[in-house]
């Protein structure tokens, strides 16, 4: 039996320590992982918990991220709780198996510490890895600080393992700014956390030798489409379970989560829509804009997949101009948030100005002043009733300004 870890009411943890404690409290049976900056401390912390008797399960230090995710798939099919952590290139190496995890309906938890993708090689935070995996059929939860990284990791197990969901779940946090920045975190005590997450309920366990089961079949044009459709159906419908788990978590902790996060949106004319740590910076910028008489607000997602299509339109229903902030190189088009927000607004008959800002690639600092300039752009567009600045701009970039359309 694992030892109880004595925790203070308030701990000072960085995002990696917060995620590691959540994995420990979930009493993962198999954690298979490979080190990569900036998520490495998650597995280092976890190894130390194991070495000190706080974990009953096994930590397998495999020889690549591909094997890390393959190990999680096999362990999960074997009927045990499995999890891992990664970033960037490691995430990219996992991609093949991410699709296998979701297609095989295995509720693995992956804590992703977001980092840029090479080339050029870069260890700092952006959302390239998150965007790379967005069609992989996983539930994607987004945190902005260590507390949320902790909370959402605990909730990830309960969401993914729900028998109506049975899908893998990623929990994202920003590299370094969240993962390596110590902040106050209010954890649950071990027994409370374990009670919340619950015992793992195996489904079609390979270890049950009395009931042989075939995992990872082949389907061609006769059945593949139905399998993928069913998977999409269940991913779309996981919203109700996500909401239920958020509600249970609120009852237990008082901390409230929703599909979409809003800040001062009740009367906002202009809004920044971002993910990750920029959400907190944008709130400070919004407050400062409000001192200047500009009604600024902030919108973000807790759940990137399934994308809260209606809730996004609802949150933005009275706004005149929106900045969709994409922290990933868009590769020849607009950023994903821009496209998805625009689709959501269009489907709901809303026509605010939507601008696309590409920012913070490779860990480039995004300052309050930069975000205030974004609000200034939005204010101009809101007043003019049309886009009076380019639709896509790169901000915080050295050299001449880069913009399109």
């Amino acid at each position, binding site marked *: 039996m694992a030892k109880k870890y004595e925790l203070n009411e308030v701990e000072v943890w960085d995002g990696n320590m917060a995620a590691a404690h959540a994995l420990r409290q979930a009493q993962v049976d198999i954690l298979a992982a490979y080190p990569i900056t900036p998520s490495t401390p998650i597995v280092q912390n976890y190894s130390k918990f194991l070495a000190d008797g706080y974990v*009953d*399960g096994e930590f397998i230090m495999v020889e690549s991220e*591909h094997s890390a995710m393959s190990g999680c*798939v096999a362990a999960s099919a074997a009927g*045990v709780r499995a999890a891992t952590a990664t970033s960037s290139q490691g995430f990219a190496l996992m991609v093949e198996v991410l699709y296998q995890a979701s297609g095989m309906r295995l509720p693995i938890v992956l804590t992703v510490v977001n980092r840029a993708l090479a080339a050029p090689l870069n260890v700092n935070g952006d959302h390239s890895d998150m965007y790379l995996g967005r069609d992989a059929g996983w539930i994607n939860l987004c945190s902005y600080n260590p507390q949320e990284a902790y909370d959402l990791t605990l909730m990830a197990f309960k969401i993914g393992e729900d028998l109506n969901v049975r899908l893998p779940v990623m929990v994202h946090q920003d590299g370094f700014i969240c993962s390596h920045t110590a902040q106050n975190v209010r954890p649950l005590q071990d027994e409370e956390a374990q009670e919340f997450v619950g015992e793992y309920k195996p489904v079609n366990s390979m*270890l049950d030798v009395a009931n042989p089961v075939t*995992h990872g079949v082949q389907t061609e044009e006769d059945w593949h489409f139905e399998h993928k459709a069913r998977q999409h159906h269940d991913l779309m419908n996981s919203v109700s379970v996500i909401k239920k788990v958020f509600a249970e978590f609120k009852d237990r902790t008082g901390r409230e989560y929703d599909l979409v996060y809003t800040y001062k949106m009740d009367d906002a004319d202009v809004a920044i829509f971002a993910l990750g740590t920029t959400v907190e910076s944008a709130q400070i910028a919004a407050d400062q804009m409000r001192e200047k008489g500009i009604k600024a607000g902030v919108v973000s997602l807790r759940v990137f997949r399934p994308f809260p299509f209606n809730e996004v339109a609802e949150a933005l229903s009275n706004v005149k101009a929106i900045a969709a902030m994409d922290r990933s190189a868009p590769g020849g088009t607009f950023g994903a948030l821009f496209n998805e927000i625009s689709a959501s607004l269009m489907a709901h008959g809303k026509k605010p100005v939507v601008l696309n800002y590409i920012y913070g690639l490779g860990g480039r600092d995004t300052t309050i002043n930069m975000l205030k300039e974004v609000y200034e752009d939005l204010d101009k567009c809101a007043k003019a009733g049309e886009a009076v600045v380019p639709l896509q701009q790169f901000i915080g970039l050295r050299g001449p300004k880069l913009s399109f359309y």
Partner: protein
Amino acid sequence: MVKKIKNLKEFSLSNDRFEGANLMCPGCSHNIIVREVLNATDDPVIVATATGCLEVCTAVYPKTSWDVSWIHIGFENAAVAAATVSAAYEVMKKKGKLPPATQKMVDEGKEPKIVAFAGDGGTYDIGFQSLSGAFERGHNFMYVCLDNEVYANTGGQRSSSTPIGASTTTSPAGSVSYGEKMMKKSMVEIMADHGAPYVAQVSPSKWKDLVKKVQKGFEVYGPVYINAQSACTTEWKHAPEDTIEVSDLGVDSCVWPLYEIINERDEHGIIYSTKLNITYRPKKKIPVEEYLAAQPRFRHLFKPENRHIIDLWQKAVDARWEYLQRREEAGV
């Protein structure tokens, strides 16, 4: 628990946990090998399979040929799949949370045997990293390479197991080429050098030898590697009914020597003894030419301009046979 097998008739009547109802080619060795491996034990078996002929022919939804728990993830990860199932088994055993039926078997001394099957593409090439990692970590499982020396499932491309002179779809023989240029990779020695407690080479035609080695492998704790000769009627281009004969030619010419390497460890895991045993010695070592002549993939080697490759083959096989005998004699 070691299964007692009296004779081939009894063995062939064992309760199949891998059904003959599958899509493999008539005359395919994979079927024979998998049956021989699974029938070597009455204990529960759990199988991981790499992408390849065996996988695409035995688990096409909504059907399955497997009467044991089975998983396929991808081409390159059968080793880590089996290894992690093994780790999961050990964790649940330690926690006392095995499914009741499994726990009952364990209490009766019937520990599940966890086996990975992969072709040479999934072993020598794309799966090598995963295989090496799983062996280094020492997981308790058996890895069986169904070695047909070619990417048969994708239409006969060369792998690093393809022997010199073979004509494949990516190393075809032509007016200026004798086919594959590289020698076959020495997978058995490579796996033994990982420190695995038991490594062996087998042929489905020598079923007693195969079963004995698989049973030995099941009895040791740690990763076990079995390299199984798998004559491929489609890519070696021999007639389906000649599979066993071609296999025998390989064994009797010493192209496919049957041997085992045993690494014995002390309680600290230090290897104190490595022994190589040749488990089958042909009464009459036949010329390699006879083995090559039986397979149209080597037909072009019999043209005058390519005869030197046959000579090279004979030299390479003789040198290797000599090497194995010396190791056996020296007890290393």
